[in-house]
């Protein structure tokens, strides 16, 4: 330590002394080869004669002297594991180093671009005609190898599933929520899992509460809804649906939690295999799920196949330490090989064994940068590709630069304003409030051409977004007043009153405490127009986003402004089903529930499209969610370095600028 200290001191002095004269960049001409593991002995792939891999090189090239294509990225956590990466930029590296089992096209529909061909799932029908299970078959293409030359086999695919479904898996993937046969038995180590859960459910549904419990629940409900306790007592109108159902739901939650907790406590393994995952032959894997789940293909197909011999040494159920230990040095079958992460730079070199062909760009580096410097960094030539946050100002600057090419791609998600139907119980009041929202000028002022107003609460990127949807609640204070009057409010002394109470709402918005949010002008408009009509409107601007989401989850907000991330599948269970865990709107509609369940029980896209269009109309009529904007993300490219013609055409959020990375070329000048 002492020695290190002194040598550092010396270096420090040295640095200060020599700084002055080094203003110019030159490539290192004769540096030694960086690392030994870029050039490895490789086994020849098993059968290379009869397919395209016949032209595959037998050895990986050494690209340590190659100048690199440089990307400006945000902070890395250095977790580049296909299992444990959580941040977007770590994920980018994972995607470069690993290849996906099934490929997806521009609309996120499965195609044949992945490691395995896409085969339509087989539906197995029961006697009564309903689909009992769905079988997915994944057949790996021939002659595939990982970047170390080892063949990719069914065992690698199965290994990847087992890690993701492990009871002690701590990453962010949720593939285990797919109803794979036997996955819960495996995770909870209980062969009778399904029976026990069914029993708990049945017991809870038939539970007869004591008088004390009824009393207590009624008190809670009365306070939550601001109504009379008597309404929730056995003689009241809301007893069955709210009090009794609530007590039973509470009991179910408590019992299931206790059961899962007790299962988590014990560590002894009894279930060693997942019933629904089967190896058919060396290249074929079959996954069987219960019933139908249109989302399953995304969970099962989009996995990054990980080499078992590399990640899985000594892997057994419950012990992922070996897998985790490799998080900093990923290896897979993707277009690039991981070389290093040091000095805030990630270095990747081409994988000449890549199944779609060896990439032309032999080295790619990700340089960590401050978001504010992304545009300047590209302008100065410090990096060649980046994603500055899209604003009108940035767009104007980029357009003025001759050497910068830019792409605007829709963001996978949308912005909305939500209303909690349990806090503002009258639909007419909610509709009235919606008529006070003037969305277009707000979105235009904040984003200019970089976002547009949407008319249904769904990202326009989704195939299920009804293209012909029109505005439901236009800005119209007169109409708003009509709705408030219909709800029984009357103007008294300039105040909108009903039963002696003024119409009062509170709006939560996470605008950094300084009104910096695209929806801020909208809620400000609601406040101004609302106060003119005699409402009391309070806007709470959260400086701390975490606090905002805590309050939202706790159901403390009447009205709030937020955004949803979209998934490729438009399933709405989580957000709009009456039992959905993210149903912050408290929308409870039996017709909607049925539509949601029906739509997730079929793989027929056209039929689902229709159901979702209907479901969205119901959501709009409930007036609990005002769709606000669909925004775009910006990507910039240095034309002097990158041959723009080799970027993919018609990029979408599912098909970005690196979707065809193996074809990307640098310009002549840059070489």
């Amino acid at each position, binding site marked *: 330590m002492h020695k290190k200290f002194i040598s*550092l*001191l010396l*270096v*420090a002095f*040295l*640095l*200060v002394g*020599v*700084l002055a004269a*080094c*203003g110019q*960049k030159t*490539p*290192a001409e004769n*540096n030694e080869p960086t690392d030994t593991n870029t050039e490895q002995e490789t086994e020849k792939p098993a059968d290379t004669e009869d397919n395209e891999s016949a032209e595959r090189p037998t050895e990986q090239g050494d690209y340590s*002297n190659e*100048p*690199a294509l*440089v990307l400006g990225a945000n*902070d890395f*956590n250095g*977790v580049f594991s296909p299992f*444990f990466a*959580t941040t977007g930029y770590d994920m980018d590296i994972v995607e470069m180093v690993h290849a996906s089992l099934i490929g997806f096209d521009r609309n996120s529909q499965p195609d044949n671009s992945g490691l395995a061909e896409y085969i339509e799932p087989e539906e197995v029908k029961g006697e009564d005609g309903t689909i009992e299970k769905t079988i997915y078959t994944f057949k790996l293409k021939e002659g595939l190898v990982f970047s170390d030359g080892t063949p990719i086999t069914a065992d690698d695919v199965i290994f990847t599933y087992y890690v993701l479904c492990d*009871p*002690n898996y*701590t*990453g*962010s993937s*949720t593939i*285990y*929520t797919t109803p794979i046969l036997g996955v819960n038995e495996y995770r909870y180590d209980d062969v009778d899992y399904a029976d026990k859960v069914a029993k708990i459910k049945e017991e809870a549904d038939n539970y007869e509460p004591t008088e004390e419990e009824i009393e207590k629940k009624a008190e809670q409900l009365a306070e939550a809804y601001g109504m009379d306790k008597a309404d929730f007592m056995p003689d009241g109108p809301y007893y069955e649906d709210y009090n009794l159902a609530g007590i039973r739901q509470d009991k179910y*939650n408590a019992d299931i939690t206790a059961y*899962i*907790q007790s299962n*988590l406590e014990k560590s002894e393994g009894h279930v060693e295999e997942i019933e629904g995952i089967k190896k058919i032959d060396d290249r074929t894997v079959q996954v069987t799920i219960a019933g139908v789940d249109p*989302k399953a293909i995304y969970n099962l197909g989009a996995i990054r196949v990980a080499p078992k011999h590399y990640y899985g040494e000594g892997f057994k159920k419950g012990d992922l330490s070996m897998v985790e230990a490799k*998080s*900093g040095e990923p290896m897979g079958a993707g277009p690039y090989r991981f070389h290093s992460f040091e*000095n*805030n*730079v990630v*270095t990747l070199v081409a994988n000449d064994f890549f199944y779609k062909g060896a990439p032309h760009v032999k080295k790619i*580096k990700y*340089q*960590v*940068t*401050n978001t504010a*410097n992304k545009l*300047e*960094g590209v302008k*100065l030539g*410090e990096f060649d590709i980046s994603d500055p946050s899209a604003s009108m100002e940035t767009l104007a600057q980029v357009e003025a630069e001759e050497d910068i090419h830019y792409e605007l791609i829709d963001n996978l998600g949308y912005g909305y304003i939500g209303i909690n139907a349990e806090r503002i119980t009258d639909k007419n009041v909610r509709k009235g409030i919606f008529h006070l929202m003037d969305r277009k000028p707000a979105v235009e002022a904040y984003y200019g051409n970089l976002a547009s107003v949407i008319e249904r609460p769904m990202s326009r990127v989704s195939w299920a977004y009804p293209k012909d949807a029109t505005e439901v609640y236009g800005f119209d204070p007169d109409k708003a007043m009509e709705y408030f009057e219909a709800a029984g409010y009357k103007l008294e002394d300039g105040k909108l009153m009903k039963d002696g109470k003024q119409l009062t709402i509170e709006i939560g918005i996470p605008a950094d405490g300084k009104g910096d949010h695209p929806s801020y002008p909208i809620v400000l408009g609601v406040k101004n127009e609302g106060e003119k009509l005699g409402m009391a409107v309070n806007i709470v601007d959260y400086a701390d986003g975490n*606090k905002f*989401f*805590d309050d939202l989850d706790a159901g403390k907000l009447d009205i709030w402004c937020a955004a*949803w991330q979209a*998934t490729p599948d438009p399933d709405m269970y*989580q957000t709009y089903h009456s039992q959905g*865990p993210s149903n912050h709107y408290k929308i409870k509609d039996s017709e909607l529930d049925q539509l949601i369940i029906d739509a997730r029980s079929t793989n027929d896209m056209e039929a689902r499209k229709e159901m979702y269009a209907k479901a969205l109309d119901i959501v709009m009529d409930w007036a609990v969610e005002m769709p606000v904007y669909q925004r775009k993300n910006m990507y910039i490219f240095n034309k002097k370095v990158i041959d723009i013609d080799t970027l993919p055409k018609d990029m979408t959020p599912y098909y970005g600028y690196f979707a065809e990375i193996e074809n990307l070329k640098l310009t002549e000048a840059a070489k």
Partner: protein
Amino acid sequence: MKQFIIRRILLSILILFGVSIILYALIRSMPGDYVTSITAGNPNVTPETILRLKKLYGLDTGIIEGYIKWLGQALRGNFGESFIFKRPVTEIISSKMWISFSLAFTAFVIQIIIAVPLGIISATKQYSKLDYFVTIFALFGISLPSFFFAAVLQRIFAIGLGILPLQGMVTARYDYKGFRLILDIAKHFVMPIMVFVVTGIGGLMRYSRGNMLEVLSADYVRTARAKGLSENKVIYKHAFRNTLIPIVTMIGGSIPGLFTGAVITEGIFAIDGLGSTGLLAMRQGDIPFIMAFNIFIAVMTLLGTLISDILYAVVDPRVRLS
């Protein structure tokens, strides 16, 4: 002296104990936790999933139980594995602190070289034009927010003149080796070091000036002058040495703090130091890392005060530690 050190160390342990309780309670009370942040926005997440993940990450306990668990491990030297980096936190801290230290230490040396002489000169020429100039410069530096000054430097040297790289630690495009690499890193560190020096120099300079003024008004200086010694001899032989006493103790005490990193400057210049890493961990609720990092800061602070107390006794024989 030995007794003093032992007593101080024992006291430090007690303080650390208290610090860790407060830290743990504060961190666990922050809104949002790591499990919430990795599951947020994922429509597949069920309450069961969250329950299990919280259990696996040890977030299912109350504050007191959690603290006892943490303390039990920490006392055995096991500070756990970082949630977000998936590596032992001690390994992360020991690898990144040298980056932060090399930056901060270089800046610190430059600060001393500039600040101490300037402080002494302005004290000897109190209320002269030079004194005012130096004082204004010092206050200017203290008042400059580092993020603002960093942006100004970037605009001038990187964007305007194009002689220094905008940010980062190395030129990513080329793989420099050996001496070239050191030069490359040095070039990238110029602006961050300038930020440290300019924003930090004022304090040390005012401190030297104040001490020198105090010494200059002491009786023995008057005696030296009365004896007819030359002004140079009075200042540099008699006064200067005595001024050094508090300065040396201050400098010695500051050194451990140089390891702990600078959150803002490291972030702006994309330097992979302890400060920016700490901020990243804080944002994502990485409890093991935040705990270890803050305990590390606390240890360094306590070490700093201990060193400066000991140095005080070493430099000034009149001081007896007991």
